[in-house]
Structures are given as structure tokens and as C-alpha cells.
């Protein structure tokens, strides 16, 4: 086990950065759309968005390899999901309840997933996904595969769950190629970190598990790409499980039903940078693109989202009569009880 890593940030390759930026843009725009559809009463269930968390999230999805790796996103990971290969259409279908969406109306919104593609479908109970990612990694190792890695997202609140502790400790014991990404966005719903934990730095926990820890300013896309990429590389090449503790502020309510008026304004000056305009500034400064190009990307993203919404809205909704009301797959063992 080594000391927490504090890396000096040197900008990543422009293509990588621009790809990440465009995904962030798509995430932001799509989530703003879902939020407005929610306000219009067009979405059932809650809408939880990742505003301000896109740089961190995209870095995870983009550093992973679909087909090889496992990704367990949470509620604020629209950007990571898209970067890992989800289509905006499938995401949108889930929000709009299309029968063609991956969850077929059975589960909704942020609970979507594609387990066969390594994109797990979160359950709500926080902390529960970590050991499940470990299980998939364990399976792959047992089958003799190598070069794979898993990444799992958790919030500052989620670190207080017993499930988090059991799973992180287990991953360390098993030396699995797991990257645990803690997004410390200062709040768990309305609860500030002062009521969530009492340590000076969540990163101190890494040592207590025998894992390498990485600190990260999640408002900075370059830092995110570099640190997340590095941690994933370490895990992939036999470095064992890694823990990233990323600092940022949730730039929205807990969900779209919540105005977040309890957020301490001081937080905005201290950790509240918005990663999206910050990333844009770096692009312009480095002249990797000009304002016109960025505006064109934004328009493309808006169009893609609008098309996805239009398509999903035309699709059939779940039909209770066509639904297979059976929770197991072994047909002969379905309980004969019928009411």
C-alpha cells in the first residue's frame, strides 16, 4: 500500500479531452431535457441529475473498455453511461417508459442497465453495487481472463453504508481490479458531510482497507481524466483495488423535486465550480476548438436529444396484458398459485 497519490495535472491528449467534453455536453443537455420533461409531468418517478459531476463521471466511462470492463454507475452518472457506450435513445426510452427501453417499463430511469455489456443495473440500496462488481471481476479471474477492470460509483452518503465497508474490504482481501470512485459532492440528499462522517478526509479510509488512494478535484476535467485513467490503469495492470475520492459540489437539488435550498452558499465558492464551462475554457485557451465549433457540438447534442425524445415518445408503452408476470426464468418452477 502506498501513500495517497497527488498528481500534478498535465493536460491529456486533445482528442481524449474533446471526446470527454462532448459527452459531458450531451449528458448535461439530455438531463436538462429530462428535468424539463419532469416539470411538465411527462416523466414518472424521480429525476436525479449529475449537474456538476459530469467531468468525474465521463472520465470513468471513457477510461473503461466496453466488452472487457464492468461499470456500475449511480444516479449522477449520465455522462459516464454515455461514455461507456449507452445511447441517448436508450436512456431517454427509460425515462419515457418506452417498452423498447432496456428495462421495458419494469424499472425506471437511473435504474437502467445492460448487464450483458458490463453496464450493471443499480438497485436503489446504496452500497450494494460494489460487491456485485467485485463478483463479476472475480468470475472473470476465475475463468482465467486478464486485463479487465471494474469501476463503481458511490457518494459521500453511500460511504456510510455497511455494504460499502464490507465490499471495499472484500475487494482488498481478494486483490480485485476494482476502482471505487467516491464522489464527495458535500451532500447526501439534505445531509451535509458534517453529519455523515467525522474524519478529516475520506481518503484516509483507503489506507484502512489497504488500498491505494487518489485525491481528485472533480471540477477539473483534465485532472479527472488523468487520475481516473491512472487508477484504472493501475487496477488493470495488477495494482489491486484503488480508491478515488473526488471533491465537488452537487449543483442541483437531490432530485428535480428538490430545490436544494439547504446547500450552504459558502460551498459554492469553495468547491462549487461547474466542470462544464471550466472544461470549455481550457479548450478555448488551448485552441483545441473555437467557440463556433463548440456551439455546433451543442446544437448536435440538442438535436440528438430532441430526436431521442421524439422517437421514444412515439414508441409503445408497457402493456400489462402483454407483460410476462413472472419473476423467475425456470418456467416449470413458477409457483402455481394464480390469482
Amino acid at each position: 500500500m502506498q501513500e495517497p497519490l497527488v498528481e500534478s495535472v498535465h493536460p491529456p491528449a486533445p482528442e481524449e479531452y474533446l471526446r470527454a467534453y462532448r459527452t459531458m455536453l450531451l449528458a448535461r443537455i439530455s438531463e436538462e431535457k429530462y428535468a424539463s420533461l419532469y416539470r411538465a409531468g411527462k416523466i414518472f418517478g424521480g429525476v436525479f441529475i449529475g449537474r456538476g459531476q459530469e467531468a468525474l463521471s465521463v472520465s470513468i466511462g471513457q477510461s473503461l473498455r466496453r466488452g472487457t470492463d464492468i461499470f456500475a454507475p449511480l444516479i449522477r452518472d449520465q455522462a459516464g453511461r454515455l461514455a461507456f457506450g449507452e445511447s441517448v435513445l436508450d436512456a431517454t426510452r427509460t425515462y419515457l417508459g418506452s417498452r423498447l427501453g432496456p428495462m421495458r417499463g419494469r424499472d425506471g430511469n437511473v435504474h437502467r442497465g445492460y448487464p450483458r455489456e458490463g453496464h450493471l443495473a443499480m438497485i436503489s440500496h446504496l452500497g450494494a453495487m460494489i460487491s456485485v462488481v467485485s463478483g463479476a471481476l472475480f468470475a472473470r479471474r476465475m475463468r482465467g481472463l486478464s486485463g479487465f477492470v471494474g469501476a463503481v460509483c458511490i457518494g459521500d452518503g453511500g460511504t456510510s453504508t455497511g455494504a460499502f465497508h464490507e465490499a471495499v474490504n472484500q475487494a482488498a482481501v481478494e486483490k480485485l481490479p476494482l476502482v471505487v470512485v467516491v464522489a464527495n459532492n458535500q451532500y447526501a440528499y439534505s445531509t451535509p458531510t458534517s453529519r455523515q462522517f467525522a474524519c478529516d478526509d475520506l481518503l484516509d479510509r483507503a489506507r484502512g482497507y489497504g488500498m491505494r488512494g487518489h485525491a481528485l478535484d472533480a471540477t477539473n476535467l483534465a485532472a479527472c481524466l488523468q487520475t481516473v485513467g491512472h487508477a484504472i490503469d493501475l487496477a488493470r495492470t495488477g495494482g489491486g483495488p484503488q480508491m478515488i475520492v473526488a471533491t465537488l459540489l452537487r449543483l442541483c437539488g437531490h432530485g428535480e423535486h428538490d430545490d436544494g435550498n439547504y446547500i450552504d452558499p459558502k460551498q459554492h465558492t469553495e468547491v462549487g465550480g461547474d466542470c462544464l464551462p471550466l472544461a470549455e475554457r481550457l479548450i478555448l485557451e488551448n485552441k483545441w476548438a473555437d467557440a463556433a465549433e463548440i456551439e455546433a457540438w451543442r446544437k448536435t447534442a440538442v438535436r440528438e436529444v430532441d430526436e431521442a425524445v421524439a422517437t421514444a415518445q412515439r414508441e409503445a408503452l408497457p402493456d400489462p396484458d402483454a407483460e410476462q408476470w413472472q419473476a423467475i426464468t425456470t418456467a416449470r418452477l413458477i409457483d402455481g398459485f394464480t390469482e
Partner: protein
Amino acid sequence: MITYLEAIREAQAKALADDPRVFIYGQDVGAFGGAFKATKGLAKEFPGRVLDAPLSEDAIVGLAIGAAIDGMRPIVEMQFADFSTVGFNQIVNHAATHFWRTGVPCPITVRLPSGGTAGSGPFHSQCMEALYATYPGLIVMTPATVEDAYSMLLEAVAIDDPVIFCEHKYLYYHLKAEALPTEAMPVGKARIARAGRDLTVVAYSAMVHEALACAEELAGEGTEIEVVDLRTVKPLDTDTVLASVARTGRLLAVGEAWPWGGVNAEVVARVASDGFALLDAPPRRLNAKDTPVPFHPNLWGTHRPTARSIAVAVREVLSQ
């Protein structure tokens, strides 16, 4: 007018005001007032007695148990009933066994925002009353009215045993009463929510209202069903149920929970054992379907029983 949710808030305010041993502990229950606002304003009104907890259901219940053993009357709010699986062990193996093992009571109240609403999906919709009722040592309340939500929560805090208080989220805003009750039916007794001669529907929580809506509809066709509201599922008031079946000769047990086991099986089994001769037709159950609670309202509306599906089941029992 006061809603079911407001009644829960008011009961907690009264408990805090009347008894210095009472405190409330749970995620976001403090200044924020809780995910559903069931503790709105209470942190301010009762400083230091309404406290935000970390995201740690096991430790939340554990702390409440320790405080209760030491003489307090904690109220725990689970953010959703579904998350109580994570505090399950402390509830069923610690709180429930403590009095029997040691002779020292453990008066905690665990509030579970329960049951389905449109779009809530598999993890924010569950009905967990039967899970807890199975365990010796717990009282399980399932109030269906504003009055019961208020008076039963007060009683839950007052009694010396651990209480699982299943409050139904669908009723939070939908259900309204003129005023808070000043008197209350005793806890542990079921209530005839509507009298009728043709068939007894036993229900609890939100399903009482589906049953009442069904009764209204069927009354138009000349069928009078009697609706029994269980109020608590443990203890379960077999006497009132049997007395009703004695009048009607027919039983339909309706519950929002899954079909295997649970309150409905318990009700039907009791009536079959103790009221066999009273039955003019086979007793029946109506439950949710045997799948997780679906997210999409199109599916959800079919997954759980409704006035309409109750009516179909009633007609079937009446035809036998």
C-alpha cells in the same frame, strides 16, 4: 382539513411535546423535515431532539435500540420502507428479542413509508408488514385513516414494545380528514369500515380505500360488501373478522403485498380454522402479482389490486 401525512407529523409533535423521552432519528429528518416532510419544522420546535442520521440503517436502528433500553422512546424514520432491509437484523434479532431474552423492554417505533405509488418501482414501493409480523416480539401497525395514523402513532410511541409503523405513501396526500381525533379506537382492534351483508372484504392500509371504492360501486348493483380494516396486522383481530364472516358467510382478503404468505394467508387461514362453519363459499385472496413492483404506471396499475379487480374477485366469490 388535515392529511394523513400531516397527522403523522402532528402525532410526532405531540409525542415530543408530551414526553421528554421521545426523539426522532433518521436520514434528513432534521432541518429538511424528511423526504416526505413528515417531520417538517420539528427540529426547530424541539431543538436537539430531531436528528439527521448518516446513511446507515443498521446503526440507526441500533442506536434507537440502545436508547430505548436505556429508557428513551425513539422514533426512527426509514426514508422508504424498502431500505429497512438494511436495518432488518437490528429490528428482528435485537429489538424484537430483547424483552423476551432479558426482561427489559425495547420501546422503539420504526416508521416505514410503505407501499406503491405511480412510478416508484421495485425499490420504493414495498409492503413489508408481513415480514415483521412473522417475528415474535414486534407489533405491526398499518393505519388506513388519518385518525388512525395519528392516534396509532401516539400509541406506538407510548407502549413498551417495539412497533413497526407501516404508513402508506399513497395515502400521504390523498387522504384528508376534518380534524385530528380526540378519541381513538383501541389499538389491536379491527374496524368495520363499511357494513354489508353479502361478503366480507378484509383489508388494511391503502387497500381499505380500494375496497371501499369497490363497495360503493357494487352497492349500485345491489351487492353490499362489508369492509373490515385490520388496523394492526400483529396482533390481528380475529374476533372482529370472524364476527363479520358470521354475518356475511363469505370472505375475500385483499392486500397490496405479494401473493405468497403474508397477511392475506394469515387471515384466510384463521378464518378457515376458526370460522370454517361460518363460510358459505371458499375464502379467497387478492394480492399483488408475484413479481417486483413495476415502475411504469401502466404495469403498476395492474400489479396491485384495485377497486376494479376487487370487484371481479368479489363477484367470483359471490358466484360460488
